[in-house]
């Protein structure tokens, strides 16, 4: 695996103005991510995970610090960086293939090439035959597949995912995790995925960054040395459990004694 950094964040801080002064969300966060790594960002809810992702996507300017993508300082949304949002965030008036094609349409790719590329991706995410279906007729999991295809159609170097499976039920979420790994093994993008699910993070990631409560700092940077390809069964191995335990401790889940 090639580890030359594709993304580097240095001393990122974000403060939102509100009625009582300011809400300090991110506190001097620094890290580097190598190409083709799958990194999960884990943290308690409200810790600023999504804010961090929005900063990395160039949607939100940090109050301090700097993000570099392939050595270039980030000043706004950038080519080569694609985002998958928390809810599928599809346009309800566009069919599945029209939603997937949107990025190509904005780039002025001609209709024939766009159709070919979106067709490939519809197959890849397992939605063949659903081309002309409207989002309202899709289940949550299917809608999120469309969203992933819409991100991949841009052929990004970096894929940012904001709790992509957060709104799905546990069974669908596990399935989608498996599917994502399959897709990732084909495309080998660099992925930064925000999640609050410890098992999901261990199952998917090469490396997990754990954020603290607000203001968020990185409290643990853990490499997940579980060999790939990872089968579903890997979830039940002792080493998997050990990684999960370390992450749980870093998050500082409140002990409940009976």
């Amino acid at each position, binding site marked *: 695996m090639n580890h030359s950094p594709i993304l580097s964040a240095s001393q990122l801080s974000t403060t939102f103005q*509100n009625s009582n002064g300011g809400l300090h969300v991110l506190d001097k966060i620094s890290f580097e991510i190598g190409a083709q790594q799958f990194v999960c960002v884990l943290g308690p809810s*409200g810790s*600023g995970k999504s804010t961090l992702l929005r900063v990395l996507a160039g*949607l939100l300017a940090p109050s301090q610090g700097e993000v570099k993508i392939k050595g270039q300082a980030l000043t706004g949304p950038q080519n080569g960086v694609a985002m998958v949002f*928390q809810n599928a965030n599809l*346009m*309800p008036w566009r069919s599945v293939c029209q939603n997937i094609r949107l990025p190509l349409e*904005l780039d002025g790719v001609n209709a024939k090439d766009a159709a070919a590329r979106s067709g490939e991706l519809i197959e890849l995410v397992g939605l063949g035959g659903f081309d002309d279906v409207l989002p*309202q007729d899709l289940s949550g999991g299917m809608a999120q597949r469309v969203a992933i295809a819409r991100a991949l159609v841009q052929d990004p170097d970096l894929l940012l995912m904001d709790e992509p499976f957060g709104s799905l039920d546990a069974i669908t979420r596990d399935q989608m995790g498996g599917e994502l790994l399959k897709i990732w093994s084909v495309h080998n993008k660099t992925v930064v995925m925000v999640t609050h699910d410890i098992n999901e993070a261990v199952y998917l990631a090469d490396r997990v960054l754990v954020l603290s409560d607000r203001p968020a700092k990185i409290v643990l940077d853990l490499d997940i040395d579980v060999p790939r390809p990872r089968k579903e069964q890997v979830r039940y191995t002792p080493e998997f459990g050990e990684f999960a335990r370390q992450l749980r401790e870093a998050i500082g889940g409140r002990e409940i004694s009976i």
Partner: protein
Amino acid sequence: MSVPLSRSYGSDFLLTMATIAQNTSSLLYSLRQRGVALLPFTLALFIFLWYSLVWAGDLRAFILPTPDLVLSRFVEAAGDGSLLRHTMVTLSEVLGGLVLGVSVATLLGYLLAKSQTLERLLSPYIVASQSIPTVAIAPLLVIWFGPGLTSKVLICALIVFFPILINTIVGVRAVPADLHDLMRSLKATRWQTFWLLEVPAALPVFLGGLRIGATLAVIGAVVGEFVGADRGLGFLINVGRGEYDTALVFVAVFTLMFMAMGLYGLVVLLEWRLLGWQRRESQETINY
């Protein structure tokens, strides 16, 4: 994480107004939908009651003409071309007013939706202007612009203005912030965001406003013609009244009704064409 935006309190009133307007129009639909199958019966009942009223009250034709008298007056007015002439006058006033009112209101509504500052600055004036009944300023417009087409077009435009303005603001504001983020992350140009996101997302609410506007425009034209005109269906009503030709008044009233219904139907047709993606979702409101 989404940060709560500070909402201007000035827009609350506008939003409430729009909600009331929406609720009223959706109520109209469900009533209409249920009534459709019964239409021949209700129509027969209506005509029967009309006859009974005339006979039971022994009413003279200039008080309440019978339906057949109205029909023959219609045939007469249609035959000598006068009905068509007056209808075309009113229709051009209505259409002119719609085009003017809708374009100004849409443009201003979009700007107000995009700029909190502009909305805070202008919305008190817009709300205040709406508390003046259009009927009250119609005479002024006739004094300033004469009894011709211009004054009527302006009155129609004024009456159409508000619902379109409000619905444009509400529609554009209701575009999900996440979809705006998506367009930004895809580096969409301003024009692409407008055309591919804001227009389709705001269209359902905007067309809801257009439905209301289309029927209001007919009222505007008649108000204008009552105040001062020498042609048009409103003028025809005045003539009929002056000559105790009550059947003619009814002919004009029914023509106006059909005109308003026709315009309303055109907007519904437009919705049918443009909002196909919503059809299943809101079958209740569009299906008839």
